[in-house]
């Protein structure tokens, strides 16, 4: 069977599964809709968190990025896993004990202030939208390559599916679909990785194959470093970014991860504090399957790519090259007219441009794996994009129906009415996300930095101080969030998006202390901490009942009761 038939079968089956689960787990109350009734087992929650977390970017783009960045790509590997340690140790158990539905709920109650709640809602919505636009685009890309439909049609099909189970099932539907999606995506990621690892190094586990010898007796990484030197690239295993910048970006991604509302909210769905801790452990272990395999795939793919194309005759290149050339994601220009592909670091003589995003999708084809494996990768990419999109849409709809409408405008709204508003809000959110997927704003690539930077500079300090510093009051927290947020937005707008100031003075040389906009969230976070603590010392201590809340969330006993309010 050809790739396309296989893709239709496998993608079709996986979609049928998601829809079946959605119907089976339809939400009946707001509690079902927001936190899946609070009765999800730690392992199921771990799987759902993992699927929620691993987005189209993790599945499709990350290995490709690393294969072009080498050591510098480590910022993503450490950044997107290390945050779970912070989450498990500093946030999840306490927020679970607190026992409300959302992050703005915590901020609003802990800081006894609707202003704080509103700041948190705005951040949550903004962070989630920037993220979801990228997911919808990812869906479109997979559809267009493997089902040969137009990208826009692909986005609309994706919207329809997400709409169906997010709107119908809420958190309950999403959680159980995400469990299924986790299985699909991890299977789809691992199968080709095993194949390629065996092919290249005779080792089954890619994590070990990564450090093993290839058929010619050389260690894979040494060989890759050698190839890089020959072609004039920097060595694969050494970095080019400054240490400080790598440090800052890693920290911003870690802290951002721990501050992302769609990840935090997952820990509200388990029954106990104990389960929240354990569930974070499961989530990281499951995520790590992909995150420790990805750098291996990057090294395999990089070696494979160089060996397949470098100095080979253009006419004799395998079929995948032509297929991707048609999408415009691979471009070849025979500058010296010798009919051979010169792939080198020097921009003047280099003849090949490759889009980083295609590495994972093209990898099975490059390694000549069977057609069903290639179709599986398509289904996995879709599972990754859809599961993350659904989780984000839920945060958006909850923020609107619960944090804004119920908490601020219509406090006496019935449960049924709130549920209806939640569904309406997710309908609107799906449409907006779809619009961004079809007409991606030019800054989509850089908004991921923005999303993490903002989460790190706003939520993280406010939540941590709310738990670990009893003296922290609303004046301190609000001032910290606003200052942290504004300075991070300013820095990114100035040096990445070029919306403010003269572009000519926004080069790398002008970065403060050489810190890139991606890493600036760390500075924003530090400033937030300092401002919060200083201001809180000059303003009145929080009221007794709030201090009692802090005392209460520090001990696990009694979490079961806290969930209703």
């Amino acid at each position, binding site marked *: 069977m050809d790739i396309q038939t296989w893709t239709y079968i496998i993608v079709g089956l996986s979609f049928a599964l998601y829809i079946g689960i959605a119907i089976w787990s339809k939400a009946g109350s707001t509690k079902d809709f927001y936190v899946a009734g609070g009765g999800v087992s730690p392992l199921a929650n771990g799987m759902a968190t993992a699927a929620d977390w691993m987005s189209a970017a993790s599945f499709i783009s990350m290995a490709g990025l*690393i294969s072009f960045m080498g*050591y510098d*790509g*480590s910022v993503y*590997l*450490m950044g997107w*896993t*290390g945050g*779970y*340690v912070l989450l*498990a*140790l*500093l946030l999840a*158990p306490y927020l679970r004990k607190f026992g409300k539905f959302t992050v703005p709920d915590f901020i609003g109650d802990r800081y006894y202030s609707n202003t704080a709640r509103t700041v948190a809602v705005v951040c949550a919505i903004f962070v989630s939208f920037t993220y979801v636009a990228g997911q919808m685009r990812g869906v479109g890309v997979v559809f267009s390559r493997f089902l040969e439909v137009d990208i826009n049609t692909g986005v609309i099909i994706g919207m329809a599916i997400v709409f169906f189970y997010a709107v119908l099932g809420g958190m309950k539907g999403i959680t159980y679909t995400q469990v299924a999606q986790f299985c699909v995506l991890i299977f789809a990621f691992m199968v080709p990785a095993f194949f390629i690892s065996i092919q290249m190094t005779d080792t089954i586990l890619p*994590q070990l194959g*990564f*450090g*093993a*010898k290839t058929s010619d007796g050389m*260690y*894979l*990484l*040494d060989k890759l470093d050698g190839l890089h030197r020959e072609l004039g690239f920097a060595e694969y*295993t*050494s*970095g080019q970014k400054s*240490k400080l910048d*790598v*440090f800052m970006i*890693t*920290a911003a991604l*870690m802290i951002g991860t721990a501050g992302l509302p769609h990840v935090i909210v997952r820990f509200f769905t388990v029954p*106990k*504090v*104990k389960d929240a*801790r*354990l569930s*974070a*452990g499961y989530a*990281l*272990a499951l995520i*790590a399957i992909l*995150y*420790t395999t990805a*750098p291996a795939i990057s090294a395999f793919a990089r070696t494979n790519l160089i060996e397949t194309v470098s100095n080979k005759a253009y006419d004799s290149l395998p079929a995948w090259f032509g297929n991707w050339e048609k999408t415009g994601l691979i471009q070849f220009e025979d500058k010296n007219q010798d009919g051979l592909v010169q792939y080198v670091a020097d921009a003047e003589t280099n003849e090949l441009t490759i889009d980083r995003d295609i590495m994972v999708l093209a990898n099975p084809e490059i390694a000549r794996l069977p057609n069903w494996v290639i179709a599986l990768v398509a289904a996995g990419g879709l599972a990754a994009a859809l599961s993350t999109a659904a989780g984000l849409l839920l945060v958006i709809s909850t923020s609107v129906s619960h944090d804004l409408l119920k908490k601020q405008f219509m406090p006496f709204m019935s449960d049924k009415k709130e549920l209806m508003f939640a569904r309406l809000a997710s309908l609107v959110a799906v449409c907006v996300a779809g619009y961004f997927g079809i007409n991606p704003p030019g800054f989509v690539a850089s908004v991921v930095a923005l999303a993490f930077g903002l989460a790190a500079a706003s939520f993280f300090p406010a939540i941590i101080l709310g738990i670990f510093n009893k003296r922290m009051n609303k004046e301190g927290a609000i001032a910290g969030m606003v200052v942290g947020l504004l300075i991070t937005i300013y820095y990114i707008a100035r040096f990445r998006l070029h919306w403010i100031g003269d572009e000519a003075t926004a080069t790398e040389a002008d970065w403060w202390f050489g810190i890139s906009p991606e890493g600036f969230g760390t500075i924003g976070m530090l400033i937030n901490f300092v401002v919060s603590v200083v201001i809180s010392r000059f303003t009145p201590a929080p009221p007794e009942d709030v201090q009692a809340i802090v*005392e209460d969330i*520090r*001990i*696990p*006993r*009694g*979490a*079961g009761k806290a969930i209703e309010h």
Partner: protein
Amino acid sequence: MKDEKTREAYWRKNLSYLAILLSIWFIVSYLCGIVFVDQLNTIRMGGFKLGFWFAQQGSIYVFIVLIFVYVRLMNKLDKEFNVNED
């Protein structure tokens, strides 16, 4: 668990666990994977340079272990101070 003193002691113990675990977290990622990566890269472990291995593999494995150790420590501590859930 009404007693202010036990509550206080439980929280202090918790904070000391956090300090130890987060120090390890910082050492494997920021120190081994970034700050001292060049020095560690002179040591080899099979086909890996050690610093590179920490940055792309090792730190992640340690992170997982840290969370599970924390879960165990806290479950024990909760029981010891009688603040565990049922």
